[in-house]
């Protein structure tokens, strides 16, 4: 129960951050990506706020043996920069530029009830499912930051 509440709080903070920063607006994001146009650098300020706050979490984590409600920190697997990483990032970037949505804002915006948002999220889930199907479900230890590296409760 504590784990569920902790995750709920994290998701709520994340969603509130997307609302307050206006990153929930795909046109705002495209305004950042449109460097040659009427450039809106706001997203850079989101990153400038988010990264130092996340650094505090990483630093505090180094000072504790394990997370409050889990047995171990789930570290992303150490791997070199490889073609798979860069190809995936490039494909993601292309989709991001086409719609103005990355996964977080697209999900957070589902409450707007707009068909375009629902269609994007449905396609995104299909893309994820397609990847799983193509990789035969063997992607668990191939560089998924959220995959468990040890069995836990």
């Amino acid at each position, binding site marked *: 129960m504590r784990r569920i509440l902790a995750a709920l709080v994290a998701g709520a903070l*994340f969603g509130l951050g997307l609302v307050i920063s206006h990153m929930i607006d795909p046109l705002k994001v495209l305004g950042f990506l449109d460097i040659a146009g009427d450039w809106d650098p706001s997203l850079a300020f989101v990153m400038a706020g988010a990264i130092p706050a996340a650094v505090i979490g990483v630093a505090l984590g180094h000072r504790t043996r394990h997370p409050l409600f889990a047995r171990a920190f789930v570290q992303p697997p150490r791997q070199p920069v490889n073609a798979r990483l860069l190809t995936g990032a*490039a494909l993601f970037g292309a989709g*991001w530029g086409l719609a103005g949505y990355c996964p977080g804002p*697209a999900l957070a915006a589902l409450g707007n009830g707009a068909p375009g948002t629902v*269609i994007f999220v449905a396609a995104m889930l299909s893309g994820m499912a397609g990847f799983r199907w193509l990789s035969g479900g063997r992607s668990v230890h191939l560089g998924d930051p*959220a995959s*468990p590296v040890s069995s836990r409760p």
Partner: protein
Amino acid sequence: MTHFTPISAAIGGILIGLSAAWLWLTLGRVAGISGILGGITRAEAGWRLAFLAGLIGTPLLFALVGGTVAWRAPAASWPILIAAGLLVGFGTRLGSGCTSGHGVCGMARLSPRSIAATLTFMLTAALVVFAIRHGLGH
């Protein structure tokens, strides 16, 4: 098209970073949305669903209590949105992360992979926007 809003952007960013710090310190998990979503059918659905409930529910709650949520619908046509969604879903799984996992959490850990991924998706996204808004036909 949109106005530069550095203060609200930074405050919102801090909340996103605090979310990542909190998830790391409580559950030992990286707050990468594509990873949380993509792993949902694989392992530990409980906390993942709770995170997503918070993520989706908070903007809704914010709007219900009278707050202004700038959640405009995407401007692209449906076929483009379908293509974009497929690319984002497939690409984030292939590349092991998105704007949050690589761009915030990975950058905070100074991960070379996340720095390379973030530079790559920022660049390709900017190139696609350039091609659409200023490329051929304009």
